[in-house]
C-alpha cells in the first residue's frame, strides 16, 4: 500500500517538476508563433536594419531601437560594472565584520526596489540635473545609463561577492605567505581565480539592463531615431513594445511581438553564456 502511494507521489512530483521547463517552452512557443512569421514576411534584414518605424505607414524597421538598446545597455555596464565589482571586492576583503553586517542587508533590501521607482527618480531628480548642468533634453541615453547602472548594481555585486567568496582560502593564504599585501593578493590571485564568476555577474547585469522596461521608458525619452550623443533621447526594444502594445492591432501588433522575439533571443543567448561561465567555474 505505502509502496504504491510512494510511486504515485514520485510521478506527481515529476510532473510538477516539469512546470518551469513547461513555462519556458510555452513562452518561447507563443512569442515565436506571434512574432517569427512577421520577421520572415518582412525579411529579417529589412526588419532588423531599416531605420524607419512608422506603423501607420506599414514601415517596421527596428534598427534605431536596436542601437538604442545597445547604447543604453553599454552605458549601464560602464556605470554599474566597475562600481559593482569594486563594491564586491571592498565588501569581501576590506570591510570590517560589523560594517558588513549593516551594508549587506542594505544592498539586498535595495535590490527589491520596484523598477518604476528607479524610473521616477530618473524623471524627478536626474533628468532635471542633466538638463541644467550638462544640456540636452534631460531624458536621454545618459539618464537611462545612469539609472540602469544603479539598478544592476545589486545583481553585479551579489554574484561577484559569491564568486570572490568561493575562491579557496588556500590561494589567498599562499599569496599572503609569500609576502604579498592584501591588495596584491586580491588583484593578482583572487580576482583571477574568480574571473568567470565576475564575468557571469556582469553578463547577468547586462541581461537585466537590456530587459528593463518601465524605468527606461520613463527616463530615455523614447524618440525613434539613432542617437548622436549621450544627451540625445533614445527608444529601446523593450520601450518600443511597452509603449505601443496598448493600442496596436494587426500587423503593428505582430511587429511588436517580432521585437519581442529579437529581445527574447538576445536574452537567451546572454543567459546561456552566463550560465556556461558559472558552470565552468564550478567544474574547476
Amino acid at each position, binding site marked *: 500500500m505505502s509502496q504504491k*502511494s*510512494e510511486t504515485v*507521489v514520485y510521478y506527481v512530483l*515529476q510532473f510538477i*517538476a516539469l*512546470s*518551469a*521547463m*513547461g*513555462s*519556458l*517552452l*510555452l*513562452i518561447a512557443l*507563443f*512569442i515565436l508563433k*506571434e512574432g517569427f512569421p512577421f520577421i520572415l514576411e518582412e525579411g529579417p534584414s529589412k526588419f532588423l536594419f531599416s531605420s524607419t518605424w512608422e506603423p501607420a505607414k506599414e514601415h517596421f524597421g527596428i534598427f534605431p531601437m536596436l542601437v538604442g538598446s545597445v547604447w543604453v545597455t553599454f552605458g549601464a555596464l560602464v556605470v554599474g560594472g566597475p*562600481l*559593482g565589482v*569594486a*563594491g564586491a571586492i*571592498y565588501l569581501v576583503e576590506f570591510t570590517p565584520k560589523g560594517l558588513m553586517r549593516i551594508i549587506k*542587508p*542594505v*544592498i539586498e*533590501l*535595495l535590490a*527589491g*526596489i*520596484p*523598477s*518604476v*521607482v528607479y524610473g*521616477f*527618480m530618473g*524623471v524627478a531628480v536626474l533628468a532635471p540635473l542633466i538638463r541644467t548642468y550638462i544640456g540636452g533634453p534631460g531624458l536621454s541615453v545618459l539618464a537611462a545609463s545612469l539609472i540602469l547602472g544603479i539598478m544592476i*548594481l545589486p545583481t553585479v*555585486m551579489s554574484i561577484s561577492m559569491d564568486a570572490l567568496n568561493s575562491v579557496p582560502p588556500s590561494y589567498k593564504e599562499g599569496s599572503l605567505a609569500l609576502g604579498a*599585501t592584501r*591588495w*596584491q593578493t*586580491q*588583484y593578482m590571485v583572487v580576482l583571477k581565480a574568480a574571473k568567470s564568476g565576475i564575468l557571469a555577474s556582469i553578463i547577468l547585469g547586462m541581461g*537585466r539592463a*537590456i*530587459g528593463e*522596461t518601465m524605468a527606461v*521608458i*520613463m527616463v530615455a525619452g523614447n524618440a525613434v531615431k539613432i542617437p548622436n550623443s549621450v544627451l540625445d533621447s533614445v527608444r529601446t526594444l*523593450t520601450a518600443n*513594445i*511597452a509603449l505601443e*502594445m496598448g493600442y496596436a492591432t494587426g500587423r503593428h501588433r505582430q511587429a511588436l*511581438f517580432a521585437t*519581442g522575439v529579437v*529581445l527574447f533571443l538576445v*536574452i*537567451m543567448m546572454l*543567459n546561456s553564456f552566463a*550560465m556556461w561561465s558559472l558552470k565552468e567555474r564550478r567544474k574547476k
Partner: protein
Amino acid sequence: MRIPPRVAQTVARVVLGAATFFTVAVLIFIIGHVLVKGIPVLSFRFLFSNPEDMGRAGGIFPTLVGSVLLPAVALVFAVPLGIGTAVFLTEYTRESKITAAIRFGADCLAGIPSIIFGLFGFIFFVTVLRMGWCILSGGLTLAMMVLPTIIRTTEEAIRAVPYAYREVSFSLGATRWRTVWRVVLPNALPGIVTGIILSLGRSIGETAAVIFTAGSSLRMPSSLFDSVRTMSVHFYILAREGISSENAYGTAAVLVLAVLMVNGISYWLMHQFMKRFS
C-alpha cells in the same frame, strides 16, 4: 617609478571604499527621497478611499486591493509548483539529464525580462484562453515569473537540512514521502518562507508584466475575472502622464514601504534559518 605595495594597497582601499559608499549612498538617497516626499501624503483616507478624477484626487484603495490580490493569486499557483519541483530535484532523483534540463529551464525562466512575460500573458491568458484583462491572467503570469525564485530558495533550504535527520526518519520505518513531509519540509520551512516572501516582494513591485495582463481599471474588482490596477501600475500612470505628482509620491511611498517590509522580513527569516543550521 614603482609604486610601493603598501601605498598601492591604501589607494586601492580608498578607491574601493569610495565606490562602495557611493553605491550605498545612492540607494539610500532613492529610498529617502521617496519616503520624505511621500509619507506626508499618507493618511488613513489616502489608503482606504477610492481615487477620484483618474487619481488626481482621492485615495488608492482599489490599487491596494489589486496589489494584494495579484501576488496572492500568483503565490497560490507558484508555491505548490515551486516546492514540488524543489522536492523532486533534491529528494527524489539523482543528478541526471532530467534534473539538468529542469534546472536549465528554471534558470532561463529567471532571466526572461518582465516585458516578455507581459507579452506572453497577453497573448496566452488574455487572448488565446479568452480570460481577458483580469486578476487571474495577471496572477498566472506573475506565478510563472516567480516560480524560479521559489524553486531555487526551496532547494537551498532543503539542502541545508542535515542528512542525519532523514536517516533517523528512515530508520524508524518512515517512507520517503513521510520523511519529506514530516521531517525535511518542516525543518526547511523558514528557508522556504523566505523564498515565498521574496517572490511576494517581486510581484508587488512588478509593472510591465502586470499592465498587459491585469489591465489598469481603477474600479474595485468584484471577482477574479475583473480587471484591476496594482499600486505599481497606478504609480507608473500617475508619474508618466503627469496626473498628480503628490499622489504619485504617496503611492510610491506605500509601494517602497511594502517592499522594504516584505524584504526585511525575508532577510530576518533567512538569518534565523542560517543560524539554526550552522
